[in-house]
């Protein structure tokens, strides 16, 4: 590997971190990983833990694939990516079960869901296969953060309106309920997650003219 000439946090590298948060967000702009965004956003807590786990898996597998990028035969690259992701996810799951059992219990099936998250394969294929490890690492962190932010925004509205709680604590006072206010049961169901994603995409495109398609 050639010696790094540009500084670790050059403008280009910073962009790798910040762009996925806004103008190239994996969920709202690339519309990837929507399936898991629907599944884990009923409450903020699982959404947050899912975001952190995706970040770990994506950053590490991005680095691994980036290190291997010159040796991976293109014909079997998808299989190689899958093996790396699956191995990472199983490893994370095993470590959580051994040392952070309570968190592992909360995550339960979501850990397995990470394997099927298309953001991870998308980033490996689009970025890590043709970039250096450090850039790939930043790209992984950035994209996972972009994914996580949207997850938490959706979960915030769904938990607040659907259960009247935030992070498991009740925020809508009982007196409001006694006036006849009711939790919106529809918010808990998957269709509302899709609608919330849609509204977020709408707001983002209305504010950012670059994202609007011409036709």
């Amino acid at each position: 590997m050639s010696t790094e000439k540009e500084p670790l946090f050059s403008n280009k590298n910073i962009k790798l971190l910040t762009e996925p948060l806004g103008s190239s967000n994996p969920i709202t702009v690339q519309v990837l990983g929507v399936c898991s965004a629907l599944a884990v956003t009923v409450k903020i807590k699982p959404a947050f833990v899912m975001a952190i786990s995706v970040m770990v898996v994506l950053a590490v597998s991005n680095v691994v694939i980036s290190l291997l990028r010159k040796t991976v035969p293109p014909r079997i690259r998808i299989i190689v990516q899958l093996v790396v992701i699956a191995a990472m996810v199983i490893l994370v799951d095993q470590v959580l079960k051994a040392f952070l059992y309570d968190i592992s219990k909360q995550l339960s099936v979501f850990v397995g869901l990470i394997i099927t998250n298309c953001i991870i394969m998308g980033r490996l294929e689009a970025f890590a296969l043709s970039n250096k490890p450090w850039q790939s690492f930043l790209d992984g962190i950035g994209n996972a953060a972009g994914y996580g932010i949207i997850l938490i925004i959706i979960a915030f509205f769904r938990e607040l309106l659907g259960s009247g709680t935030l992070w498991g604590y009740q925020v809508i006072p009982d007196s409001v309920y006694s006036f006849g206010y009711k939790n919106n049961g529809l918010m808990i169901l998957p269709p509302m997650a899709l609608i919330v994603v849609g509204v977020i995409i709408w707001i983002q495109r209305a504010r950012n003219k670059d994202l609007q398609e011409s036709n």
Partner: protein
Amino acid sequence: MRSYSNTYIFIFSSVMVIIVAALLSGAAITLQPYQKRNIEINKKRNILTSVNIESTAKNAEALYDQYILESIAINSKGEIKKGVDAFNLDMKKELAKPLKERSLPVFICSLDSSKLYIIPVYGKGLWGPIWGYVSLKNDLSTIYGANFSHKGETPGLGAEIANKSFQTEFFGKNIFNDKGEFVSVRVLKNGTANPNSKYEVDGISGGTITSRGVDAMLLDCLISYKPYFKNIKNE
């Protein structure tokens, strides 16, 4: 783009698979003792929760030894089976066996100088298994406490069975009616349970299939202890 020979591809994939396999099995073997211990502690915590004793991962084992007098296994006739490790019985495997061959665990707890019987239950939710522990008072009908867990029910819906608010609904309910017939505690559609009834509780709105799973689980599991309860009462 460089082209790769078939031999290279074969060698590359074989080496990759061997490395990954070695890594994962190494991790599984070294981490297994920790995981087993966590599962055991978690089980003890669940059992303690069913008799309304709050515990942490650290003090669970001490509290368990203090309150749980013995764990026994019984057969389908309600007789005590000797030489069976009741704590480590796998409910899933036991329920798959025909009724006569089953070993059913019972945990006996002593709390405030009264005896409580803790019965494990195991069933199906919407996405996977659900299980729990139900503790009965000395009359072998009144529920003292209940604790339910699940593998992967939907958060906010079916997963609510693991919440205190659902579990407290069971407190004081009866599994035998006044005539001594087994009725179990039925989990009905949310809002339809009669609050005065001793035999029914409200299910979770939006978690209908999981609620039905709890209903079926209680019915199926508790009934196999009927002979055991009878034997104790006749003693």
